[in-house]
């Protein structure tokens, strides 16, 4: 009922659910096929009402150079509105004043170039169009670099489907993919409610998903041979042996650099801004020999990447990138069997036991205190206190119905003032109010309502509410009704207490943020055909409140 955290740790259960479905193995087999056919760039397949798409991890020709000095570029300017929902800022403040100082959404320039070139390919466009017409849901996958292309493709598809109000489901599954963009990208995806559409599979040691946490410029040549080695291993294994020799020295240099950078990030205190430019988004599915866990908390993901790499070695971290087929197959059998666990170590509390089991599945042995303890702590940090946006919204509706009586009392106050012999109206009555019990109560109600609506705005700011919240009639009308009724009282209070002498005119200096937002909701509300019918008379409440805005102007005169 309340926002209590669940007494169970379920990241492992979520991973089990995903593993029990055919999605992972299906996506992997397509990725595998795409890798062996690099000239195509992608493979597509329709299975009933599910469309499958996989991008090759081997990119020929104008391959990206992950090492080029400045490799992040703004998504907006480069793509001409392809990803418009990610550009859109509706965080309440008009003009986006609060966004100042925050980075725009940035993505890796090289990966974006690959995606744009695939997208302009007529063959791809046809397949895509076909898929959208014939599918209820679409899975987009990719291995390594293919995963970043899959990520961009999914973002584009989600944007496109939103623009045509389609309800096709999209799921992006990547295997060992490097990071794609910055923290603003991650935040924009959260804001759009898309984080549940991305699942990045990362094996215990694979260095590729961790690579971009480190400054890479100094390692340029080594990285070149690393990429070459991986690509050859996928296409022609005999040649890969040669490439491996070239790589030998580089291996440990890369490993050490990545580990050191991750160390710095993981040790950074919460809230402190240690940035590496890139940042994870969506869910991460960490798999090991012993099972898997799935979580979408970015801080947890970064710390986990660090913890898991601690017990690795340079060659492990490079070979693991090529072992996803093995992990996927292993996991799908493993979930059907019990994994044994040294019973003496299992804590009694359900939650603690769940955490211990989750860590075991991710491949961190509990015996290894120095690694296990920080991992445990950060899994606990990732414990969700909140609920899903839809649940929050439903709870908010309950709260709304509980505070509505306060609003009704103000309405009544207004009605009695309007009718009283003094003919003063509720604005002036409230402004000149004495110490009566009734005046006190109205003022209290005003505060309670303000607290409720400020909380609504606060939740919106934190992405705790559905993204179309501000377009839902219940809330647009409710907030408008509230504003028309109560804002005059706020204005009365403003001038009663002489705030205008200190701060200046109400509209420009004293108006609460919530009213500006509600006014915008009302202006931007979707208007249905039937609402355009004119009413025979105005219903009592809206009619009498149209003067709301007038009060503000009157006082300034």
């Amino acid at each position, binding site marked *: 009922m309340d926002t209590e955290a669940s007494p169970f740790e379920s990241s*492992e*259960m979520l991973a089990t659910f995903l593993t029990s*479905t055919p999605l992972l193995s299906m996506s992997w087999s397509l990725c595998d096929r795409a890798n062996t056919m690099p000239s195509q760039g992608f493979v597509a397949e329709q299975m009933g009402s599910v469309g499958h798409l996989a991008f090759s991890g081997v990119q020929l020709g104008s391959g990206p150079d992950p090492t080029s000095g400045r490799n992040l570029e703004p998504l907006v300017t480069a793509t001409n509105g392809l990803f418009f929902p990610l550009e859109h800022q509706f965080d309440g403040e008009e003009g986006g004043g609060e966004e100042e100082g925050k980075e725009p959404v940035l993505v890796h320039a090289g990966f974006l170039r690959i995606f744009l070139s695939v997208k302009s390919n007529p063959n791809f466009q046809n397949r895509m169009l076909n898929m959208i017409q014939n599918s209820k*849901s679409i899975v987009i996958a990719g291995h390594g670099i293919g995963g970043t292309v899959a990520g961009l493709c999914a973002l584009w598809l989600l944007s496109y489907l939103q623009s045509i109000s389609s309800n096709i489901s999209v799921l992006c599954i990547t295997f060992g993919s490097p990071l794609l963009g910055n923290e603003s990208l991650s935040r924009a995806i959260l804001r759009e409610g898309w984080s549940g559409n991305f699942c990045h599979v990362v094996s215990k040691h694979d260095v590729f998903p961790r690579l971009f946490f480190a400054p890479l410029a100094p390692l340029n040549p080594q990285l070149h041979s690393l990429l070459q080695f991986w690509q050859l291993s996928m296409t022609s294994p005999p040649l890969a042996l040669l490439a491996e020799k070239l790589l030998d020295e580089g291996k440990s240099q890369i490993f050490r650099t990545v580990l050191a950078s991750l160390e710095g990030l993981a040790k950074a205190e919460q809230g402190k801004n240690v940035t590496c430019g890139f940042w994870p988004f969506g869910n991460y599915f960490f798999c090991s020999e012993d099972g898997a866990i799935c*979580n979408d908390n970015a801080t947890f993901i970064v710390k986990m990447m660090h913890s898991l790499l601690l017990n690795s070695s340079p060659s492990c971290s490079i070979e693991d990138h090529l072992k996803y087929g093995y992990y996927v197959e292993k996991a799908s059998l493993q979930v059907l069997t019990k994994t044994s666990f040294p019973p003496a170590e299992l804590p009694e509390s359900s939650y603690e036991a769940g955490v211990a089991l989750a860590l075991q599945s991710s491949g961190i042995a509990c015996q290894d205190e120095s690694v296990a303890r920080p991992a445990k702590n950060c899994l606990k940090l990732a414990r969700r206190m909140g609920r*899903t946006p839809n649940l929050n919204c439903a709870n908010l509706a309950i709260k709304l119905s509980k505070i509505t009586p306060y609003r009704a009392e103000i309405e009544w106050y207004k009605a009695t003032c309007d009718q009283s012999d003094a003919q003063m109206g509720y604005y002036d009555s409230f402004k000149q109010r004495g110490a009566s019990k009734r005046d006190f109560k109205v003022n209290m109600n005003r505060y309670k309502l303000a607290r409720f609506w400020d909380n609504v705005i606060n939740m919106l700011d934190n992405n705790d509410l559905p993204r179309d919240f501000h377009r839902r009639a219940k809330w647009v009308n409710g907030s408008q009704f509230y504003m028309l009724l109560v804002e005059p009282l706020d204005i009365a209070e403003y001038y009663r207490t002489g705030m205008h002498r200190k701060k200046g005119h109400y509209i420009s200096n004293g108006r609460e943020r919530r009213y500006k937002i509600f006014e915008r909701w009302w202006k931007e509300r979707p208007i249905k055909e039937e609402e355009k*019918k004119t009413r025979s008379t105005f219903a009592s409440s809206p009619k009498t409140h149209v003067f709301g805005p007038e009060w503000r102007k009157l006082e300034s005169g």
Partner: protein
Amino acid sequence: MASVSLRENLGIREEVIKKACSVSMKTHKSAGKQLYVAEKIRNSHELVFSFPGSWSLSDWFIGSSFGEVNVDLELFPSLKYIGLNQIATVNGAFLNRFNAILDNTQFKKEVGTAVTDRKQVQVVFTGHSLGGPIAILAAIWFLEEYIRPDPKKMAPLCVTFGSPLVGDRIMSHALRRENWSRYFVNFVMRYDIVPRMSLTPLSSVEQQLRQVLNFFKARSQENVVEPSDFFVTVMRNALSVVSHAACKIMGNTNLLLETLSNFVELSPYRPLGTYVFCTGNEKLVVIRNPDAVLQLLFYTSQLSSEGDLPAVARRSLIDHLSYKDELEECLKMQSVTFLDDHHLEALPLSDDASATAESNMALKDLGLSARARLCLRAAGQLEKQKKSNQQAIDKKMEDIKNGLGKLQGYKDKCKHKVGYYDAFKISEDKEDFEANVNRLQLAGIWDEIIEMLKRNELPDEFEGRKAWIDIGTQYRRIVEPLDIANYYRHLKNEDTGPYMERGRPKRYKCTQRWREHAERMSNESLESCFWAEAEELCNKSGNPSIRDRVLQLKRRVEEWIRNGVLDEDVFLNGSTFEKLLTEHSLKNSDQNVVFQGSWS
């Protein structure tokens, strides 16, 4: 823990279980010849109806991937989620088979004779394998047909062995709400594949299933099919259902969970009634919590290691055929654990915990890992949470009564004026505003209850509780007219549409359905919203053709007043309804005189 016998806990004598088992195995022989077999147990008053199975695929699945269809509410009026009006779904193939039996007049006659027998015959429905679902549907039909009209009649029993799952979550919910769940006892061997098969879409096993059914038909252990693939497919699908359910009951809020549900077909079927798992070493484990049973359907068959696969897969087929021998041993040993009595939410997680030795032994016998035990804990925790939610809601009943008392007072006062409907609609006095505040406060409480029902946060029994049905009806009768008055006062009908079609809140629809179900009414009980009809008719005034409708409404109003569900104040001078009647010259000349006399 003091040991309770199977008989005391389940309310079934061991002989009945044995007899049911042997009869239901024997009945298979009459498949194709007879629809059912009725047999009296010697020297007692039980009459056993047993249903044969079938080994043809079309009797297991029809239609889409899980072959579910809505139940026929004429036949099974209780199988729904009342307030939210959600109808239970059931496996269509099973329903077809049952309907064929019901069409057989001999069956109805024989059951009817048993019911009317003076010697209080206990009717027992039973079936093994596909006979199980038919026995379950027959028992539900019996309960609807005989027990609901007359709860004093002897309730039936339903005992199944290795039965596939029949219906969805709503079916199990409805049986628990009606307090019928206890009459259903399902025996399941630890590895028997059949009860788990219902969690797999037909499309993924069709070929293999044919072979498996042939194997069951031949009953010879020589006739080997390669069962490993089949077992793995069934278990994997079972795991999808079970792990998805576990994420939900553990409170996982990750959006990925929602996304994934759009990509995989999850079986709608859920276990119902009591489950008795046979561990395979002559012990029995009894469990009733439906979420826990679902988890056990997967975890009791989980492999210990990959190497076990061939043996377990084979066992999963053989177990389906060995109920008779196994049960005989189990009933002799009488080693029974009732898991629900052991605080599911705090079950021991590992084998060596010695505190509650009995439950630990049972968990070990079922082969449950720590992860499986955590799922059982979550199921137990959820049930506990639902109970405490209910307690919190029960405490609010006082607030509701207070609010209703105040509004009743308001209503009485308004009888001296135009009646409370119109007084509220005009809303010019302090009392009117206070009534509005009361109305809104009550709406807040009820909306919360409805929201909890929607999210399944209350115990299944909630909607069957008389106190809540009664106060819901009272609430609806007193307060709904105010909501209607408010609706038409603000002219919401002009941009939203008529109240009944577009504006009626769920809290009234829901409480109305509670009453209709509890009193088995065939007509809608719309006494609380006649004002909406009156308003709509007023809006059409000037149109002479509506006179008939006004007349009809008046007759219904008079009947409601006679039945005491509506007050006479609706006829008060100056009320919306009175004006409507006057306009169509339908007013009884005596009406007002009488009422005014009694109130002034």
